[in-house]
């Protein structure tokens, strides 16, 4: 099942992300094998799948960190890898924090903000850190923070430039309950404001809480996709297992 289109209700809007028959190979192995989907402003795709399904590779291609082997992906109409203009619209959250341990959260987020062209960044930086409840530890070295706190700073770093597309790879990794709530609230707010989100997670509950669509990925392919109105959140775990079994 290679492709899935967005709901017809919003089909007139320009997609934030349009992926067409995207493939990424490492030698003979196809980590992503002909994936197609579009995301309109305010849509959130929750991507589930077992380890090695190709979810992280897909996100790395969409973030411009890997080149597609074939097919294409467009962010706001710009084909990837589309240089600074495309990368400037994406916020990447990874299970790696992507932070400099010797610098403070404030310095890390300010550095990111300036890379994204925000010259007078201090208010934006403080706001992003406040949103993730890290303002009180904003000047401590990152290395002195717990793993969960580092993940909060990493999320603040990814959001400081108000991206049009958020790519979140296991964003709840290391977060405590309060951190997870803050993140969900932040992503929900961004989605309501028109940000498109792709979230990769093993946690069905957290993923489905935000999703307007859910997809199950296996061996590089989408083996099932569901629109939000078709998702029975109570029994999705069964649906997920069935999709994996049926997907070969």
């Amino acid at each position, binding site marked *: 099942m290679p492709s899935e289109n967005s709901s017809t209700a919003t089909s007139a809007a320009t997609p934030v992300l349009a992926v067409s028959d995207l493939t990424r190979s490492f030698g003979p192995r196809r980590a992503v094998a002909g994936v197609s989907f579009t995301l309109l402003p305010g849509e959130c795709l929750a991507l589930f799948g077992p380890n090695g399904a190709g979810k992280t590779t897909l996100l790395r291609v969409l973030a411009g960190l890997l080149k597609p082997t074939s097919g294409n992906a467009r962010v706001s109409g710009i084909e990837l890898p589309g240089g600074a203009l495309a990368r*400037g619209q994406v916020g990447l959250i990874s299970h790696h924090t992507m*932070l400099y341990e010797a610098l403070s959260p404030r310095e890390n987020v300010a550095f990111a903000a300036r890379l994204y062209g925000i010259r007078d960044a201090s208010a934006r930086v403080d706001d992003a850190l406040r949103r993730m409840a890290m303002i009180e530890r904003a000047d401590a070295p990152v290395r002195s923070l717990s793993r969960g706190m580092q993940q909060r700073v990493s999320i603040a770093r990814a959001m400081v430039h108000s991206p049009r597309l958020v790519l979140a790879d296991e964003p709840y990794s290391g977060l405590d309950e309060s951190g997870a709530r803050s993140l969900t609230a932040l992503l929900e707010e961004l989605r309501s404001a028109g940000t498109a989100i792709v979230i990769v997670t093993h946690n069905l509950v957290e993923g489905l809480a935000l999703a307007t669509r859910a997809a199950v990925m296996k061996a590089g392919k989408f083996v099932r996709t569901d629109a939000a109105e078709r998702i029975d959140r109570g029994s999705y775990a069964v649906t997920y297992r069935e999709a994996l079994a049926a997907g070969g």
Partner: protein
Amino acid sequence: MADILYTSWLIARKDLAIEFRTRSAFFSAVVFALLALAIFYYAWDPTAVTATDLAPGVLWVIFTFSGLLGLHRSFGVEMSDRAIDGLLASPASREAIFLGKALANLIFVAAVQLVAIPALVLFYNLPLTSIAGPLIAIAALAAIGLVAVGTLFSAMAVNTRLAELLLPMLALPFFVPIVTAAAQATAKLLSGRPVVEISAWLKLLVAFDLVFVVACTVAFPFTVED
């Protein structure tokens, strides 16, 4: 162009702030330079070789190997928790990343030289005050070439298992023209020859710098893009 320079400065400033906080590479390089100077000094027989004959070789050997310590660190700091992904996923151009890294490395190498050269003068009792200007020019030109080549190879080597070995193996052959020109020019200066006699070596260093700064800047994106 202004954007590239601004982003380069941001990256250089970030790298220098990290080095200022940790001081790990700087102290390693300075301690290495001073220890190497001391070893060369105690192995030296002043009745066989004069200080002005020996000092240029010592200076540029130390300069090369202490520089490698800083160059190895340059991309090492990016690998911790994949900070490099944040950098590459940002709108910063690959050329700006290279130039920023190279600028931070240049300042690092200059700071090590600021300690190593006066120490060399003390150890070998060299008459450097009269040739300080030309020597600074040689040091600056040599540092630019070394940093351009070394930054590129640091980016290539950092993802390998044998990065500490691979960086010197890749970079040292390219350092030979720099070290040769710098050592020859320094030797002429120390032996009291006029500055005009070193102009050919200076031109060689300038040409090397121009070629390798441009070539390495152009080649760098291919080392970080998959």
